[in-house]
């Protein structure tokens, strides 16, 4: 277990920090992640998800749970904050990834119009729900949902090519 911790915790902490934007809270969330991984190890199904995706998804979900349980939600990060330059050095996550599939997703996101790209990134990296995305974009909830759903449909079409 410690081996797994050493090998994966930096990336998982990066994910927690990306969502929570608060070092101390991200460290707490990281602990939740490993306690949760330990408790739910038997539910991991290699046929359904790669181990790394499973771990990363738990990290993102635990962080979003924390984010949403905050009494005062913070919307400090700008919408475009999702665009980060990837590290050149491959890590366990990159290597574990099915390279072609991963590039396909990124390629498909890049094909979307800028607005849809930003929304998907803000949802994914900042853990924003529909209402928060609408608030940030300053548009009615229904309008935003329409945008997002169109973007997701286009993404799906592209992924099926």
């Amino acid at each position, binding site marked *: 277990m410690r081996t797994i911790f050493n090998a994966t915790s930096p990336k998982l902490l990066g994910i927690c920090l990306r969502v929570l934007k608060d070092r101390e809270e991200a460290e707490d969330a990281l602990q939740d992640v490993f306690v949760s991984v330990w408790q739910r190890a038997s539910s991991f199904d290699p046929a359904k998800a790669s181990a790394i995706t499973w771990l990363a998804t738990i990290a993102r979900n635990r962080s979003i749970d924390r984010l949403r349980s905050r009494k005062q939600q913070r919307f400090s990060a700008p919408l475009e904050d999702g665009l980060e330059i990837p590290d050149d050095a491959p890590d366990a996550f990159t290597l*574990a*990834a099915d390279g072609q599939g991963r590039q396909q997703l990124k390629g498909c996101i890049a094909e979307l119009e800028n607005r849809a790209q930003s929304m998907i990134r803000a949802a994914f990296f900042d853990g924003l729900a*529909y209402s928060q995305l609408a608030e940030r974009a300053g548009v009615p909830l229904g309008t935003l949902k329409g945008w997002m759903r169109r973007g*997701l449909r286009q993404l799906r079409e592209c992924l099926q090519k």
Partner: protein
Amino acid sequence: MNEAELLAAEYALRLLEGEELMEARRRSADDPAFPASVAEWEEHFAALYEDIEAEIPAPGTWEAIVRRLDGEANDASGSTVVVSLRRKLVRWQAGAIAASVAAVIMLALQLTPPDRSTIPAPVEKKQVAPLLLASLAGDQAPEALTVAFNPESRELMITPARIAAPAGRVRELWLIAPGAAPVSLGLVNSAGIQRRQIPADLARGFQTGSTLALSDEPTGGSPTGQPTGAVLASGSLSQV
């Protein structure tokens, strides 16, 4: 893309709130295709994790996690035997994940800083009689419950996950030794860890290869002494 796939994408991204979120959760429980679709989207979106920079956790993070796991294993209400059962269970679960991700870890190890920590393992080394464990699963209940049995103390520990019963129905646990008829181990609820002391004659049925099954029964349990309702989940015992 159909509506369910769209909902799965929204659910995976965590966009949903309120009624829409409830709907997705309902579907998640009722429709086996839905969680699969969610997992597929999660796998797609996982490509984006590559864009996140790694951060080194603060010193002492691992120790803090170990303390939390030990805290759970040492739940104040437990007897010594139960504590050792829980510890075994924790260790067994850790083993399961370790095996599952071993290949990935081998890759990862080449790229992460060497292990500088000297923290002791989170579980005690004391030898206990081989524990028997069964993980019960069924079509509608992928991880219904985990059952651990200590042959030395004849103590049974049941950790239910998803076994909620509708009104008027209960869940009954059965032991089926090879070549023998099912024997009731009593009713199981979803309230938390449950412990039973097993009589010596019944304890002999707890062996590698015996099956444990969870059935749907009327309130009060099976009136016949044999399972009368559908078998919701089953699993066989194996040594830890």
